[in-house]
């Protein structure tokens, strides 16, 4: 998993050291892609890790929350869904991606709205598209799709053209309108 290219000036060194001191070893695993460092953490330790990053390592900005559905992905062995949090340290410009897997049925994660209130709408979007519930979210409603929509459209087992939801409107004819 760890494909680190061992650069001498690793901008994440200080962060990783602080995390090891705060949380101890074995909480997360790392992977790298180009200049991205990803930390994979189980859902049970997610909030601990994010809180340590915010309070001890200076990641004051949560710039993105997103989801992925790995259903049928070749070579995938982990959980079906993955939620990622992109954090940014505004002083050092360091940025870091936290990933956590969550599985069927009823995928549920703790909400990070208590840590970053900006996560509110981003978690609503992930809920809207993937049906991943965020426990502790103050107002978990759909944000993009209409409230009566029943499916989660970015799940891979949802057909691209939908299940006829867009056709269920009354038809206004000229004589009636």
């Amino acid at each position, binding site marked *: 998993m760890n494909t680190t290219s061992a650069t001498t000036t690793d901008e994440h060194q200080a962060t990783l050291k602080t995390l090891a001191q705060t949380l101890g070893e074995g909480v997360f695993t790392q992977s790298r892609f180009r200049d991205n460092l990803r930390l994979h953490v189980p859902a049970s330790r997610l909030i601990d890790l994010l809180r340590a990053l915010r309070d001890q390592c200076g990641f004051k900005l949560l710039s993105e929350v997103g989801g992925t559905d790995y*259903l*049928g992905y070749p070579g995938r062995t982990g959980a079906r869904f993955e939620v990622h949090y992109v954090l940014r340290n505004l002083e050092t410009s360091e940025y870091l991606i936290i990933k956590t897997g969550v599985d069927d049925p009823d995928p549920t994660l703790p909400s990070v709205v208590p840590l970053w209130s900006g996560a509110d709408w981003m978690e609503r979007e992930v809920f809207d598209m993937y049906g991943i519930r965020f426990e502790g979210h103050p107002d978990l409603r759909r944000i993009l799709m209409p409230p009566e929509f029943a499916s989660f459209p970015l799940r891979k087992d949802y*057909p691209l053209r939908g299940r006829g939801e867009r056709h269920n409107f009354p038809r206004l004819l000229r004589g009636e309108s």
Partner: protein
Amino acid sequence: MALEPSVAKSDSRASGSVLSLKPASSIEVPENTILTTINSVVNWCRKYSLWPMPFATACCGIELMAVGASRHDIARFGAEVMRFSPRQCDLMIVAGRVTMKMMPVLQRIWLQMPEPKWCISMGACASTGGVFDTYAVVQGVDRFIPIDVYIPGCPPRPEQILRALMDMQDKIQKGGAIQGTALPELMTNEARRVQIESSPSPALARERGDEDRYGYRIPGGPGQVGDRESH
């Protein structure tokens, strides 16, 4: 009233129009008088004072603005008074994609417009859904509201919009009555279309759930989407 056109005798007229109309009864029609119907006068007034309601939801709306601006100048056709309140409008121009979340809004705005009213569907997206054949985008607003003129293009040129406006004017002149609520031949057409669409016909296939052609395919695997449920 049955009118009998007849060429006036030249000796009885020193000047004026050559043709005069002589009714079957003995009513004299004075010179320089036009006979017409109230309906066509009303339609003539209506067609040169259209008040558009711009329902611009996407990029086509930008082109619609260009039509309103000085270079193309929709005011030459008497339709420059764009109003953003449906109560003041009689021509709806649907310019852009309409999603299923927007469709109830569109229908409500259409219902809020006073009669007589007309509708232009502008651009590929409003007319057919365009390239956006996804779960969220309505595949043509004419499925849910009546449309009088369609404009093809992505986006249509301003000239096409002016052309559509002229077609609209022709249509208004030809149909409609002052006491009626709608254009009679359009209602006939619409009833016919509903009848055609409701009768099963191989030529008009209903939209299929052909995910195998358009849907998501699992990388490296066959199209196996839609038959597995996760919730």
